[in-house]
């Protein structure tokens, strides 16, 4: 038997990334409640907001024109929220199972762990959200895929934000232990009012609007409304979002690596667990 390896702290091995994805896949398929959980909440959200949209559309002229705005917002919000949660839950699985020490003392590089978590967040999102998009077509006649190429731009920008937040929160958990776990579940809700998921940025007080425009998802939700209400795809908004996402992602990665370094200094990696 021989052992293959790649040297260097910054080299990425597809085999090691694949090994981690395999681990999460085994975990996911070993538990039907985990699989059910992926689909359950997005469905409840979509159905609730779908009926609300249906009611408003029948009673207000503007919303009748803005068909699908709420359902579209729900589905896009779910990409943002579920993307981060999918990343964080896979990471939390390592903490719950006291496996993080095994990983940190193996040849797995931190960047490889992050790449695997990002990939798994897409897999989890696909398992959870794709069936819901089909339900939206069946129940409310809203076809998310009808957004065409714009959907690709929305999706990519929202995923970048969700990864950046997920990476940073994982660093906080590594450094501070399971006391920081709640952040993984709740941090994205801070973004909900500020990124104007369900209403235009102009609804916010003037002093709060610059804060909203500093957050990449705001551009996506504004872009979605432009598309659904005025039938215009705003590429400029997507580019602004992408530029902010690049900064946010770099900051998240930098924060994670610094927090990991700090965890090694403080011995926090030995004190993880359920």
């Amino acid at each position, binding site marked *: 038997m021989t052992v293959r*390896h790649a040297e260097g702290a910054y080299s990425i091995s597809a085999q090691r990334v694949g090994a981690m994805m*395999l681990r999460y896949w085994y*975990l996911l398929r070993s538990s039907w409640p985990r699989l059910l959980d992926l689909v359950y909440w997005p469905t409840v959200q979509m159905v609730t907001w779908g009926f609300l949209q249906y009611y408003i559309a029948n009673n207000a002229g503007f919303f009748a024109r803005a068909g699908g705005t709420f359902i579209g917002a729900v589905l896009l919000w779910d990409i943002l929220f579920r993307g981060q949660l999918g990343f964080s839950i896979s990471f939390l699985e390592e903490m719950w199972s*006291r496996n993080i020490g095994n990983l940190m003392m193996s*040849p797995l590089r931190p960047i490889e762990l992050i790449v695997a978590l990002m990939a798994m967040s897409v897999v989890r999102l696909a398992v959870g959200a794709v069936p819901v998009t089909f339900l939206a077509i069946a129940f409310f006649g809203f076809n998310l895929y009808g957004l065409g190429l714009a959907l690709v731009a929305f999706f990519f920008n929202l995923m970048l934000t969700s990864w950046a937040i997920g990476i940073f929160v994982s660093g906080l958990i590594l450094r501070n232990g399971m006391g920081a776990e709640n952040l993984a579940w709740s941090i994205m809700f801070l973004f909900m009012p500020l990124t104007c998921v369900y209403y235009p940025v102009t609804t916010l007080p003037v002093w709060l609007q610059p804060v909203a425009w500093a957050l990449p998802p705001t551009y996506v939700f504004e872009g979605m409304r432009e598309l659904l209400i005025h039938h215009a795809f705003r590429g400029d908004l997507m580019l602004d979002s992408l530029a902010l996402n690049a900064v946010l992602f770099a900051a998240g990665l930098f924060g994670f690596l610094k927090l990991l*370094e700090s965890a090694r200094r403080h011995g926090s990696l030995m004190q993880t667990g359920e």
Partner: protein
Amino acid sequence: MPPSPPIAVERLVKIYKTIPAVDGISFSLAPGSITGLLGGNGAGKTTTIATIMGLITPTSGRVTVLGADLPKQRYRVLHRMNFESPYVEVPMRLTVRHNMTVFGKLYGVEDLRGRIAELGRQLDLTDLLDRPTGRLSAGQKTRVSLAKALINNPEVLLLDEPTASLDPDTADWVRAHLERYCHEHQATVLLASHNMAEVERLCQRVIIMKRGRIEDDDAPEKLLARYGRRTLEEVFLDVARGSGVVTEAAQ
């Protein structure tokens, strides 16, 4: 120039806030040797082992493993090392085979199926390979942890309480396997344990730590002679209670 020792620790210091966990220890291990690291709770054994694995950054001092400076150059050597510790667990929800597959891929093991089958035979795990790890008994889980620690045929093996909470029969079985592995592979082993009989049986050298420092360091028989004791447990208690070395005059 002589080859560098598999593990070398020089003036290692680790301070948590203001509390020194390891206070300026130095030692190096000979290739193919089994060395015991003894000490009471809080003596600094686990911190020492975690620092050697690169899991903890030292406050000062130097650790080299297989010629690489840790933690800076850890990725040069981590694939040639492995460990077992009560502070980490093999994931419980995955089957034994799935766990071995994941770790085997992480360590870049070639012919992984063959290696898993081999470990299954050697560690009596063949019938358990497709069972969830969490449903195994404590003894079976320890054998799985050992299989994970040996998946890459490590040249350096760090073991923290490898037989804790095992019944005497299983513990003896694990010791016999470790002995055989080290003999066949010329692996260098650092073993932290509270089980003195285990240390006496396995180790050619014993390092005794107390409050982050090395109190004594020698072959078991020489320690017994120096302290005028018949068992390592008595030596350990002498060191722990500060009774000290029995001088020739006193004898």
